[in-house]
């Protein structure tokens, strides 16, 4: 249900900006040497710094800074030669210092852009205003205790990259497409594991509506901490409709922070948030400016992998793949790399390789619920199989059977083909004998065919295949059959 296509809402334009929080995949926290591993017992990964012990001081993690630089380069943004960590002051029990160390006036990553393919086929360019480093807060546990809330600081201090888009998205579908593109990119770069269930990738949605694209921006609301693509879509759709309904009823929108309730597919105001926050940002006096040398940026730039967008374009322009194939192959780097490894062994066979990676491989991965990195059939093994298909040793149908055997761990393609005797019968003498036997068994159908019912060719193909246990070379079989049937 897209608000833009509802007749009652046709005059309205939604304006959406996303603040995506990507947890940087470092071993230790942004400002302390505690582990960032997910799922530990409460407060067992809380260092003296993380619990704000008096006298302790933050020291930034070099790897987190590197990962921020990589993201900035990937969205074609300027990397600030000097950026500043600032304190955002507010009281909340999961914020042990009483302030969050973030970046405010001078973020490490400046303005950049990202091309996004929306589901309807459009490509939009989304402006990213900035990306900055900040520390995550701890977790509040509300349901485990009777009259109290429990605080676990294991997550406190985990490095986040907050990626702030300009308010340039106009539908839930665009917002989700943008979010997916960022999700692909951060995983592609290896700077974030993208695990949304564990909260490694989540987003705040700023939503407002206005009457037409020329009207001034309306009052916006912020939906906090949405952690799935579907929820982002639902939350934004709900919020757009809610705001339009309110405005059409003559009510006004209150600038506020809201929470998304996945059970009801609704948003509601967040009670613990104050209406008028005054965060009193100021440069963190414990942290001098973060200076990044041009040489360090150049080194990261040189080490940057080919990015998903560039690779997708290359697949279409150079390899001649259809858009849809290129899209799917480039949805994550492991898939694209797997495809390239297969292709490297079969130059010029991009479409064949793509079909297999997106077909058999993807289907089997899906069924097994595993990532391509864990696939039991390696790219080299698949290439070996496809080589047999190409040289006519086996048919496409046999190839699928061999693949299944390979997936089940029965060995390599050649070994399976040999062991099962699956090599195609390309010997015309043997094939001719099989065809003669089939034609002799089915005189009525032969007469029918010769009488003009050429559709029966498939019947003879099937019968001959059956007799040869599928090992007949289909092309050769077709030719020979036509010859034999033509000659009375």
């Amino acid at each position, binding site marked *: 249900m897209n608000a833009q296509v509802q007749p009652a809402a046709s005059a309205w334009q939604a304006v959406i900006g996303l603040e995506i929080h990507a947890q940087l995949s*470092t*071993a*230790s926290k942004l400002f*302390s*040497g*505690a*582990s960032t591993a997910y799922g530990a*017992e*409460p*407060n*067992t*990964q*809380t*260092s*003296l710094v993380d*619990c704000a*012990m008096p006298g302790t001081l933050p*020291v*930034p*993690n*070099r*790897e*987190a*800074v590197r990962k921020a630089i990589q993201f900035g380069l990937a969205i074609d943004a300027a990397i600030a030669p000097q950026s*500043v*960590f600032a304190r955002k002051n507010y*009281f909340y*029990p999961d914020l042990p210092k009483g302030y969050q160390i973030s970046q405010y006036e001078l973020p490490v990553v400046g303005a950049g852009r990202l091309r996004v393919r929306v589901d309807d086929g459009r490509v939009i360019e989304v402006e990213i205003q900035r990306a900055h480093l900040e520390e995550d807060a701890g977790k*509040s*546990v*509300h349901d*485990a*205790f009777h*009259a*109290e*809330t*429990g*605080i*676990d*600081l294991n997550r406190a201090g985990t490095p986040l990259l907050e990626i702030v888009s300009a308010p340039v998205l106009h539908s839930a579908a665009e917002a989700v497409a943008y979010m997916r593109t960022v999700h692909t990119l951060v995983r592609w770069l290896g700077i974030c594991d993208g695990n949304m269930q564990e909260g490694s990738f989540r987003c705040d949605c700023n939503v407002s509506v206005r009457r037409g694209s020329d009207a001034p921006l309306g009052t916006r609301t912020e939906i906090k901490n949405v952690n799935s693509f579907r929820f982002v879509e639902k939350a934004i759709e709900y919020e757009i409709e809610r705001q339009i309904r309110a405005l059409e009823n003559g009510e006004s929108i209150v600038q506020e922070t809201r*929470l998304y309730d996945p059970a009801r597919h609704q948003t509601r105001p*967040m*009670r*613990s948030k104050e209406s008028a926050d*005054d965060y*009193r940002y100021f*440069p963190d*006096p414990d*942290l*001098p*400016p*973060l*200076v990044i040398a041009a040489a360090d940026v150049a080194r990261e730039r040189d080490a940057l992998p080919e990015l998903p967008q560039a690779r997708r374009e290359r697949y279409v322009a150079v390899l001649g793949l259809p858009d849809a194939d290129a899209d799917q192959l480039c949805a994550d780097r492991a898939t694209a790399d797997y495809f390239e490894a297969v292709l490297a062994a079969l130059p010029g066979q991009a479409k064949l390789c793509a079909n297999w990676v997106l077909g058999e491989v993807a289907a089997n991965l899906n069924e097994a619920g595993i990532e391509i990195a864990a696939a039991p059939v390696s790219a080299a093994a698949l290439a070996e199989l496809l080589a047999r298909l190409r040289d006519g040793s086996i048919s496409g149908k046999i190839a699928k059977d061999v693949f299944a055997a390979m997936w089940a761990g029965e060995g390599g393609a050649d070994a399976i083909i040999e062991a099962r005797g699956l090599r195609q019968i390309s010997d015309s003498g043997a094939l001719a004998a099989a065809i003669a036997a089939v034609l002799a068994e089915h005189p009525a159908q032969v007469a029918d065919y010769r009488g003009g019912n050429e559709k029966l060719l498939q019947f003879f193909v099937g019968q001959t295949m059956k007799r040869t246990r599928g090992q007949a070379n289909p092309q050769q079989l077709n030719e020979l059959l036509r010859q034999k049937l033509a000659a009375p």
Partner: protein
Amino acid sequence: MSLDHAAVRHIARLARLAVADDQLESLRSDLERVLHLFDDLAAANVDNLAPLAHPHDQPLSLREDVVVDTDRSAQLLALAAASQGGYYLVPKVIE
């Protein structure tokens, strides 16, 4: 700079300091006197000067991404007035 009671209450709220009604006026006049001291800042000529947040122009030193801190939750939680099951406890918070 003059301060009224509402402003004092607002600042005290931001700073999470409880102020009793009977302290409010003396606190207000105290703060107002201190703020008068700051009028002097307006007299300084700071045209074209960049703010100085850190005394020396030294770059930030960074650390390597290594886990060096291990579990010390028992020690930490023992310092807290209220904890249970490994968690720090605060009065119920409603989001």
